[in-house]
């Protein structure tokens, strides 16, 4: 019986499953507020706090930036405990699904996947980064993470003005785009009240434009630069959902690499390590669904089988893909 369930899961049409789960979680996070659903303020995903009415929970980066801006006197006193507990809640939420928050829950991610689906319908092929570009671009998210932490602290210490408050949110496409889904166009403006605000909001508009054009020609364009992703990766080792590889079964066919939205080469090249999660990975599990070797790539939850590459599953999915599109 257990085997039959396993086989059924391993042969599933991952694309369809993912589409529906992403839709469900998008509705939950973007419209959940209407049903008085509140998953807290420590979510490890871009459930944007600027979406005043609809938000089903808030992206942790928003309260984090506020807290860090309180000033060193507050931060390093007993009130600083609140920062730690907030962080702890964030870590616990994150541990449960690891980076699958990116691949299945993140509303920005889901929007990018919808844009990709539009491109596919129009029959336009996607673009890829070359290796040189990739190596340099990868570093940007870490830089943004560092800025996101130190600029608010700088505000608290008086180095930067309060106009720089929540600096990342100012440039984040989540702020401008997610409220659109509840009819709120107010974030799509340039704020002329101060020079700083003008620059930040202009940047925000630019990033928004770049978000749409970028994700049209490149799968999951924004995720390469995401500081949330950088933060995730640094905490990912002990997480419960793990991406694993049995290198002895790998034929180096590179199928996992060629379907990966994030162009992660290590998933194909590394045959020595068992835990194969890389910093860009969004755990969309496309690699597992494209692996033609039995039991080579798998994802486990606390050691229990969740989804694994199988020959039958692979063949079913390729046959389906050939017939449909």
């Amino acid at each position, binding site marked *: 019986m257990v085997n039959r369930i396993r086989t059924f899961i391993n042969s599933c049409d991952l694309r369809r499953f993912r589409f529906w789960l992403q839709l469900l979680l998008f509705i939950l996070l973007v419209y959940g507020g209407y049903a008085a659903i509140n998953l807290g303020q420590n979510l490890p995903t871009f459930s944007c706090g600027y979406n005043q009415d609809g938000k089903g929970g808030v992206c942790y980066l928003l309260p984090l930036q506020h807290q860090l801006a309180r000033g060193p006197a507050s931060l390093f006193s007993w009130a600083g405990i609140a920062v730690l507990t907030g962080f702890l809640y964030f870590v616990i939420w994150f541990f449960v699904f690891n980076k699958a928050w990116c691949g299945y829950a993140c509303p920005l991610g889901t929007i990018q996947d919808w844009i990709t689906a539009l491109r596919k319908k129009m029959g336009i092929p996607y673009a890829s980064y070359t290796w040189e570009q990739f190596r340099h671009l990868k570093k940007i998210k870490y830089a943004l993470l560092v800025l996101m932490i130190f600029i608010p602290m700088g505000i608290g210490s008086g180095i930067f003005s309060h106009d720089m408050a929540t600096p990342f949110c100012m440039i984040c496409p989540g702020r401008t785009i997610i409220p659109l889904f509840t009819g709120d166009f107010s974030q799509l403006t340039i704020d002329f009240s101060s020079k700083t605000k003008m620059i930040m909001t202009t940047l925000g508009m630019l990033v928004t434009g770049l978000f749409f054009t970028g994700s049209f020609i490149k799968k999951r364009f924004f995720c390469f630069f995401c500081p949330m992703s950088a933060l995730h990766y640094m905490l990912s080792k002990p997480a419960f959902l793990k991406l694993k590889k049995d290198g002895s*079964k790998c*034929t180096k066919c590179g*199928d996992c690499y060629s*379907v990966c939205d994030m162009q992660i080469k290590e998933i194909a090249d590394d045959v020595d390590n068992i835990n194969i999660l890389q910093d860009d990975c969004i755990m969309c599990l*496309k690699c597992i669904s494209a692996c033609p070797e039995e039991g080579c790539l798998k994802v486990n939850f606390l050691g229990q089988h969740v989804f694994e590459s199988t020959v039958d599953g692979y*063949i079913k999915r*390729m046959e389906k893909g050939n017939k449909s*599109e």
Partner: protein
Amino acid sequence: MNRLLMVTSSGWKKEIKVSNDPKTDEKKTAFNLTHQAIEAESMLRRIKDDFPDNPESMNYFYDLYQQVYCEGRSVYDKEKIVGTMCVQVPEELIYAAGGVPVRLCSGFYTDDQHGAEFMPAKSCSLVKATLGMLSNKSTLPFINKVKTVVSPTTCDQKRKAGAIIEEMGYDVYNMELPPLKESEEARLYWQRSIHKFSVSLKEITGNKITKDSLKKAIGKTAAAQKAYRKLHNLRKETPPVLLGKDVFMITNAYFFDKIENWTAAVNKLNEELEQRKEEKFSAAQRRAPRILFTGSPAIFPNLKLPVLIEESGGVIVADENCSSNRMLYDMITVDEWNMSNMVDGIADNYLKPCTCPIFTNNDDRKRKLINMSQEFAVDGVVYQTFSGCQVYSMEQSSITKVLRDEGIPVLLVESDYSPDDMGQLSTRVEAFIESLKAKKRRK
């Protein structure tokens, strides 16, 4: 009405009229008298008669060889045949362009002797035989129809043979294969070679490749690979449900049979083998040592080494040969089903997992051999090298070391297409099988 030029053993050329019409039986027998047919007949008889309990479904394949190699009747009629020289040529593109790919690697000693006039004495029998076959156009029925030969730049001898084939009057299309396959540069290089080929196919076959024709072509080979993968997995069974000599017949038939017929026949065989598996039917003796066969490819009718292994009491449960497993194992992955993605997926499939020893690093080949040895519970590995084959002989020491470190005994055999080394071969093979049996007994 064709004119068949028969070269007798004394070198005298005799002109015989031959008809492809199956009704005129007595005129058809001229092909039966050629040396090729005699060689084919003798090996086919050994494969059929020297072993008990051949699966019923194997008759399709035995009859196929009888028809094509013993009676000279091709399975093809008006199709545009495109000859291919190595396993890296993408069949899907040829099918999508309305052609039919036929692998030209020959296993005939007769052709090997003919080919000796084109190549130095100590060179690969397979390449010599292929040249011999192409030079003597009318021996095999479908060779007449081959005008274009697609030759990827693999080993030195295949590459240079390409130039010789061109001088014989064929159109040779050289596909540029990178000498390393791990780097991104190599991947992009090969993707461009494949793209170029897909465009050039229009001149070769007269048809352009469309999205639909490519999807259909991928579907065709995917069905064949699905059937093969099932067969491959059935070979893991203990006791073994099928002998290796039959698997070589099946995979060698993929060279020249119509793909839909081949796929259907393999599916039928798989059903019969499933039945055997249920009944715990054993195709070999209970303690027969399980062998993995690798190295220079065994191609009909040069199946003497696999047949010898099985006649000596072993059973070949797995192989790592470009005339067999390597040709059918890897399957094509496509993410988005548009033209450029499909062609890139095809390119990746023929380069990245390829375990051909012409690539500079052989890590993938080592890992594959170890993995197969474990999955198929292999007792020993037989590694064949053709005299003059540089790539396989240079790999011998590194592969042998890796296998021996895993505790897997290896027998190295140097051979060629000539039939006169059977005595020495049989001593070596029997000694190897006997030592494996002794090891098994002690366990």
